[in-house]
């Protein structure tokens, strides 16, 4: 989907340097690399939260550099996002947190009442819809975040270190969930530096180092020498 240089104005070294990666529909891609290697920047470019200093980003066949700003919301509706820090609203229940994503894009209440329980069921949170986020464990909170990202059935799911704050066992649960979502046909791009997860999943791995792609392997593992 790209051939991209990204310079941040405050930084001397480009965060991404001549990155050229093509991700197909329905793929599951791990973006690995040490902290500061440019993984988050890569993901932000897909969302058009950042614009490339050079090169082009294409999402679903559309060139983001020519996408007018009023069409950006439509782009983001087709992409779900999950982050390391969950980003839930603390004063809303689980149900309201997920419903929020639909309310603010103007979905009718009838649809919301139908699809929110469905997606909570999918992520394994049925029965906890009325809990507040601080009454949930970290893994459960991340499930809420995944539910919110997926409730609008996006084509692409972006996950930036979704297991970064979770213990290994909980992480496995989240990975199973992302895998299940991937099997519905949703493209999943996940940034991580959790080697155990990458090794166990045996999916495509793109490794970044100092903004450069140093490896692109299908069915890869985290480190070299596999």
């Amino acid at each position, binding site marked *: 989907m790209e051939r991209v240089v990204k310079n941040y104005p405050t930084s001397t070294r480009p965060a991404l340097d001549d990155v050229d990666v093509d991700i197909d529909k329905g793929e599951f891609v791990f973006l690995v690399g040490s902290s500061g290697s440019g993984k988050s920047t890569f993901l932000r470019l897909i969302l058009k939260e950042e614009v490339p200093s050079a090169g082009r980003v294409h999402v679903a066949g559309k060139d983001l550099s020519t996408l007018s700003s009023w069409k950006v919301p439509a782009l983001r509706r087709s992409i779900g996002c999950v982050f390391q820090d969950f980003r839930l*609203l603390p004063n809303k229940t689980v149900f309201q947190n997920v419903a929020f994503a639909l309310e603010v*894009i103007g979905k009718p209440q009838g649809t919301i009442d139908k699809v929110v329980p469905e997606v909570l069921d999918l992520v394994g949170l049925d029965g906890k819809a009325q809990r507040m986020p601080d009454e949930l464990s970290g893994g459960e909170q991340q499930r809420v975040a995944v539910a*919110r990202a997926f409730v609008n059935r996006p084509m692409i799911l972006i996950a930036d270190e979704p297991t970064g704050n979770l213990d290994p066992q909980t992480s496995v649960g989240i990975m199973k969930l992302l895998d299940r979502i991937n099997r519905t046909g949703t493209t999943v791009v996940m940034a991580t530096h959790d080697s155990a997860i990458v090794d166990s999943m045996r999916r495509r791995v793109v490794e970044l180092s100092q903004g450069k792609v140093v490896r692109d392997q299908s069915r890869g593992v985290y480190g070299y020498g596999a």
Partner: protein
Amino acid sequence: MRAQFVLSEIFIGLRRNLTMTIALVITTALSLALVGSAMLMRKQVSEMKDFWYGKIEVTIFLCDPVSDTGQCHKTAVSQDQQSAIQTALYANPVVQKVYYESKADAYKHFKDLFKDSPDLTKNVSPDALPPSYRVKLKDPKKFDVIQSEFQDMPGVDAVTDVSKGLKPVFSLFNGIGTSAFVVAGFVVVASVLLIFNAIRVAAFSRRRETGIMRLVGASNLYIRLPFLLEGALAGVIGAAIAAGLVSIGKAYLVDQVLAPNLKFARWVSWADVIHIFPVLFLIGIVLSTLSSFFAIQRHLRV
């Protein structure tokens, strides 16, 4: 411990927002009330001008044995002089109407005018007042033309402009109106800045929500509208209070204090007051919405 901390945080935030909200509504109300007062002041001046210019008269006092000024030398105007003056008046293009007021008419008028003060009328004899021509002009501002033509005619004592005494009153009201506009301008700036700040704080305290809205693809309008409405609401409340303040000013200051004591003019009516309300609301809503628009433009990433 944690819950307590969070609770106290919420209360602090609420109190901070509350005082800020009160402050900005008060300044908005005050600035709009000043704008309204200034507008009414203008209205008042033009009302007075209409009133006085409508009945304005130039009075040409004729010579009389009691006066020694002008061309008089203590002799009465002669028949020839008087008809010369009258002819000139009728021939003058700026003159609309001419009334002759004889000595007897003048005395009657004088008694009418001061009928509440018998002490004054008692001391004035029927002979004391000179005859005069009361002249109505087509254009009240042409007084100078009349004055220069008639001042030096034989038989004329003095040419006076009735509106002269009102000039200071007009300029007083004009001055008050202008100062009110200037002060209003400053307070308007203050209230615009306060609204800007309040919306900035609101945008900051709701950045979680707006951040998520952005990520899930809410439209720009949907994200911004609550902030714009908040600003507009402050403008509406401010304008409503300002309308109340102006009405109170009209009911007490104008109707109870000024009008009963200064009967020389018509005062601004309730219709005039109500006429400025839409202007106040318009200014309030437009300014507050604009300043919140710029606040979120700068402080809300979309």
